[in-house]
């Protein structure tokens, strides 16, 4: 009955475009809500690593939203959080094993951060805030939108850090996209020794902060218009 009340309370559901605008820009999980910073900052040292983690996160958040939404009517309210954690952990384990099987090299370079997706607060936040109160289809859309928002920041951060830190883009692409991608690496300036700081952990914080500043600047200039 509680669920029905909640469902009816949120019966005015936003359109899919709203989901994407909210999760990609306005309430971006990584850039605005600052959720899941641990994998975001630790893995984004190259673009390929970022893309690998981005895919894993999109899959996890979409599936977990779908399962949490499907099980929302028979979960006892008091133990819902442990149940979410179990669902997310199960999905992450599947993702982890699949990556180990099909993308072994990238799995090695991402290391502990694939299992650590379980602790990504962005995922459990969407389960609690959205999926547990809405039907399956909107939850899936919301999951894709959240994952895309996180993935976008992850890839921009990874690209910038790789570009500034070592002057390349997509180095090691063959790890993710197969042997034919070995030539995809873009090298900007062979003489560029790289601002090592960008690849080191402080660089992740500094560049994420600058991205947030750029986002605020764009928001401000739009508000002033």
């Amino acid at each position, binding site marked *: 009955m509680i669920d029905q009340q909640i469902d009816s309370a949120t019966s005015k559901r936003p359109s899919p475009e709203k989901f994407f605008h909210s999760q990609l820009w306005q309430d971006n999980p990584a850039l605005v809500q600052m959720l899941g910073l641990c994998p975001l900052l630790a893995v984004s040292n190259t673009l390929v690593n970022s893309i690998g983690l981005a895919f894993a996160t999109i899959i996890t958040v979409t599936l977990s939203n779908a399962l949490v939404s499907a099980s929302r009517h028979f979960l006892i309210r008091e133990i819902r959080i442990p149940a979410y954690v179990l669902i997310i952990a199960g999905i992450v384990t599947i993702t982890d094993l699949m990556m180990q099987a099909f993308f072994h090299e990238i799995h090695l370079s991402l290391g502990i951060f694939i299992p650590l997706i379980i602790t990504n607060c962005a995922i459990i936040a969407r389960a609690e805030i959205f999926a547990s109160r809405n039907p399956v289809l909107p939850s899936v859309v919301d999951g894709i939108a959240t994952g895309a928002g996180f993935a976008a920041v992850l890839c921009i951060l990874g690209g910038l850090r790789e570009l500034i830190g070592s002057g390349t883009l997509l180095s090691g692409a063959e790890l993710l996209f197969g042997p034919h991608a070995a030539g995809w690496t873009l090298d900007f300036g062979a*003489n560029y020794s790289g*601002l*090592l*700081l960008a690849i*080191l952990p402080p660089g992740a914080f*500094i560049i994420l*902060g600058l991205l947030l500043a750029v986002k605020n600047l764009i928001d401000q200039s739009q508000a002033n218009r």
Partner: protein
Amino acid sequence: MEPVNKPFRTGPLTVNTIMLLVIAALVPGTVIHIYLTGWGGLANLLVAAAAAMLFEYIVCVLRNKPVRETMGDHSALLTGLLIGLCLPPLVNLWIPIIAAAIAILLAKHIYGGLGNNIFNPAMVGYAAVLVSFPRDLSLWPTLPQSFDFGIIQTINIIANGGLVEYTHWDSLTGATTLDTARTSTGTAGQHITIGLERWTNIAFLCGGAVLLRLRLINWHIPVSLLATLSLCALIEQAINPNAAGLSVHLLAGATMLGAFFIATDPVSAAAGNTGRLIYGAGIGLLIWLIRTFGGYPDAVAFAVLLMNCTVPVLDYLEPWRWRK
């Protein structure tokens, strides 16, 4: 009509005057530094100071600040000079520019400009290039030959990637005193002598004494810093007679520059006397720890930055905060 709230009596010490006096106190040490590092050291100072002023100007324009007033406080010039004094001669031309950019943009104006920065801007800029270009920044040319390079040759080297690109000139570079001290610790019978850089340190000590005399800085930070560093060095030497001794720790590297000109930065240092004593002692301890066990050429920058982090807590220790 004249506005009545005009400052009728302008005190002798505006920010502008203080900064100029601090720069004046830096002059003797800087002259000796240039004598020891040659045109390369002079180029570092000029490039870093010019870049710092340029970035300060750009930020003033971007932030709609009055350029004359903001630039007039000379703090960007001081930041640039401190960066230039930290760098080894004959580094790539871009290194002082990047250091100045990070110092002015990321360490100072991101926080709101002079007076709001948590970290010492010059040290942030230096630390950023130190971790980014470890090979470039650990190459110190052997000191007495510094002026053997002409101006043209110096410009050629710094515009073409710095001394690190000329590593086949092995004879040019040598370990600094602190490097020798680190690598030789524990070897019996080896005596560490301080290079000519002791004169730089003595000159900075004199400049610092003038600042103390003019009451531009308080005695608390330099005294507790040097006392703690000396204590640590003496204990180390008592345990291990071959360790770098008191004189090495006090007169090599950037000890005096750090104690009197960097740690005493009024913005990023602790504000009360109790805090200042602990702040200085913490820097002294960290300098000794990083020099003895760390892997970088000198420790002053990291020690100052680490203690900058503690300043908000140290400021809570002041007795007047707890008095009703």
